[in-house]
């Protein structure tokens, strides 16, 4: 038995943490490029990474804003605060250790925000955020029962991952300045930046060697079966969680959310990278984001904000 409000908060705890982790990593990669790559390719990478963050390319202050701006809902700090605020509302549902880790992360980030050291700070804050979130997932793994609540944490985490990874790939792989929004020509540094922003460079190299090619990068990030940050992997987790959530709820199998997730997963399970890239990669990636949004809405309607009269007559 799980309160609808609690399920919603659990879902958002992990969604916000996933977003914070992603943005922290993107910032770290962007900073690294900003320091060492005055080339054309370097600038394009920066533009794209900043595009993902919704900000303008440029000076140190922008990194500060993307990290700490409380008014920007997507800043790393805002995501951590939102995750903690949601966790605070479900303290009786998650383990004390999980709560203490989210709280410790929040206190750490607040403390770093208060310290006035500039320069290398972005890297260390990003690192602290990423480490803190990894620790949270580890604690969750070893202290929380695999019940319905856990499935909502999984759902939020992987649905967010699928969405933001699709947006990130889109910003690199396709070119908005081209009228048809076709494929962009990418150099090695851009491709490796994309891989690093997905924490995928090492895994890619183990799979394909250090020979980095656009088709392979796209295949790896979209369709790889084993890599936990590929969209296919995330879609599989989303579908699995939704099947379990459906069973827990005692509703008839095959509801809208399950069918949507199943369709997304199947399209990635059997997709071909050459078809995707040759057809219309932008439409394909935007389509993934749209399907994620549909799954979100279906979950909300089925399990969280259903009409009371429908529930009474059931």
């Amino acid at each position: 038995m799980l309160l609808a409000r609690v399920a919603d908060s659990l879902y958002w705890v992990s969604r916000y943490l996933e977003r914070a982790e992603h943005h922290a990593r993107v910032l770290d990669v962007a900073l690294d490029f900003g320091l060492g790559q005055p080339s054309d390719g370097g600038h394009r990478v920066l533009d794209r990474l900043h595009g993902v963050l919704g900000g303008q390319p440029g000076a140190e202050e922008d990194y500060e804003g993307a990290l700490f701006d409380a008014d920007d809902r997507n800043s790393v700090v805002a995501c951590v605060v939102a995750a903690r605020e949601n966790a605070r509302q479900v303290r009786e549902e998650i383990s004390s250790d999980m709560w203490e880790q989210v709280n410790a992360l929040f206190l750490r980030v607040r403390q770093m925000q208060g310290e006035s050291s500039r320069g290398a700070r972005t890297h260390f804050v990003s690192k602290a955020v990423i480490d803190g979130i990894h620790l949270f997932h580890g604690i969750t793994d070893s202290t929380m029962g695999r019940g319905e609540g856990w499935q909502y944490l999984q759902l939020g985490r992987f649905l967010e991952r699928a969405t933001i990874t699709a947006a990130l790939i889109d910003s690199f792989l396709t070119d908005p300045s081209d009228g048809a929004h076709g494929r962009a020509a990418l150099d090695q540094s851009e491709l490796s930046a994309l891989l690093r922003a997905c924490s995928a460079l090492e895994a890619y190299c183990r799979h394909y060697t250090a020979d980095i090619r656009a088709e392979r990068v796209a295949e790896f990030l979209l369709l790889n079966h084993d890599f936990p940050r590929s969209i296919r992997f995330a879609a599989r987790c989303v579908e699995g969680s939704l099947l379990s959530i459906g069973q827990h709820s005692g509703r008839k199998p095959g509801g809208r959310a399950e069918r949507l997730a199943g369709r997304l997963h199947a399209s990635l399970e059997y997709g071909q990278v050459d078809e995707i890239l040759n057809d219309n990669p932008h439409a394909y990636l935007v389509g993934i984001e749209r399907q994620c949004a549909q799954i979100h809405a279906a979950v909300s309607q089925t399990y969280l904000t259903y009409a009371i009269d429908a529930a009474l007559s059931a």
Partner: protein
Amino acid sequence: MNGLAQAAAAQTAGATRPIGVPPGLFGQYELGRPFDEMFQPDGTVRPHCRPLLEELLAASLPQLRQTQVDADRAFLTQGITFTVYGDEQGTERIFPFDLLPRMITGREWDTLSRGLTQRLTAINLFLKDVYHEGRILSEGIVPRELVYSCRHYRREMRGVHVHRDIYVSVAGMDLVRLEDGRWVVLEDNLRVPSGVSYMLANREVTKRVFPGLFSRYNVRPISHYGQALLATLQTLAPPTSSDPTFVVLTPGVGNSAYFEHAFLAREMGVPLVEGRDLLVHDNVVYMRTTSGLRRVDVIYRRVDDDFLDPLAFRRDSYLGVAGLLNAYRAGNVSLANAIGTGVADDKALYAYIPEIIRFYLSEEPILPNVDTYLLSRPDDRRYVLEHLEELVVKAVGEAGGYGMLIGPHSTADERAHFRHLILADPRNFIAQPTLAFSRAGCFVGDGIEPRHVDLRPYVLFGEKVSIVPGGLSRVALRKGSLVVNSSQGGGSKDTWVLLD
């Protein structure tokens, strides 16, 4: 003066400093008129406090400071904080924590425990009587007018059957110790008493920062409070439900006691709900879960009567559940505490509790009251108005140390203001002598000094009365202050009830 001469002087006038204790940490420790929890009037340490004193004498100031930092950090990382009202930033603070445990001997506790049991038993009988036949009113023991004019009297509860006649399931009675060592009850707190999570958290932290000391004492355990509370709620389950569902109802994350609500829900293993999670259909309460609506049988509610049901009480309440009162009256859900228990912790009614105990139980009260002047009585009023600078005046329906005048610490303007308030609405005020209640040693940053301390044990009324041995010891951390409320510079410390 050397120790001997000090001891000799102490026999006549009482010592002004502890004896046999090097100044050091205790340099500023003064003994005075109030009862000292650690030292006897002759300046020697109380026998049951000797191991604590030895531990402290072996410690250095930097060590204690570090211990304080460690303890404060433990509260912060666990998120044991309260939200400061009226602060735009939503600042969260820890409730100031004093390192040194306060000791109560087993014998003393057993008396307290019997006294509290007696008191709550009589109060529950009184509440049933007041909301039904009203014998105590007919016989003129308690004035009818006093009950009906009480702000927390709920007419809606007249003739309503309360399951097992248990009105108050959880009470947090405030006790203080007077100069002569006697314990008296200061307030009964019968609505939604808070602070029990701090009692439990203080114990966890104190055990960790003083492990050696803790093992030298035989301290009665308190960690089973969650189970005891659940057992108390189980006795309230309507007989119709074979597998009752229990919930804790909180006003939400913005409430200053939110941590406690979440804590208790987890300790009991029951859902923590907000008003928006609940709904009433056909006089049955449901909660909205991911698998549809689920019936709720017992609500441990931490929401005041006023906000419980916008249809029955305050219409502007977003915290409650529309229709809850009717579901309750229909017997389809139990509430702990019942609606309308505040009539018995009205500060004017408090004066009648000893009579209430005699009336229902034919026993003498084990724990006395503080002398109380009711300002609705002309004689009392005349006396109080003439002696405002000596007395404490309290508004009858307030809690948290608000609406209070402490005569000896007041200015002429404040007294004039209260005189005006009293004359405008005498029923709304009571007065009591300013109590020099007992002081316990506290670590105040530069050393150890005595500070005034009270005790709030939590009394659970179910199948039988159960009191977890201990309570929240609240301390007035400002030097000389008599106000222990957290909103006004108060803190708390762990309370060790010893095995014997």
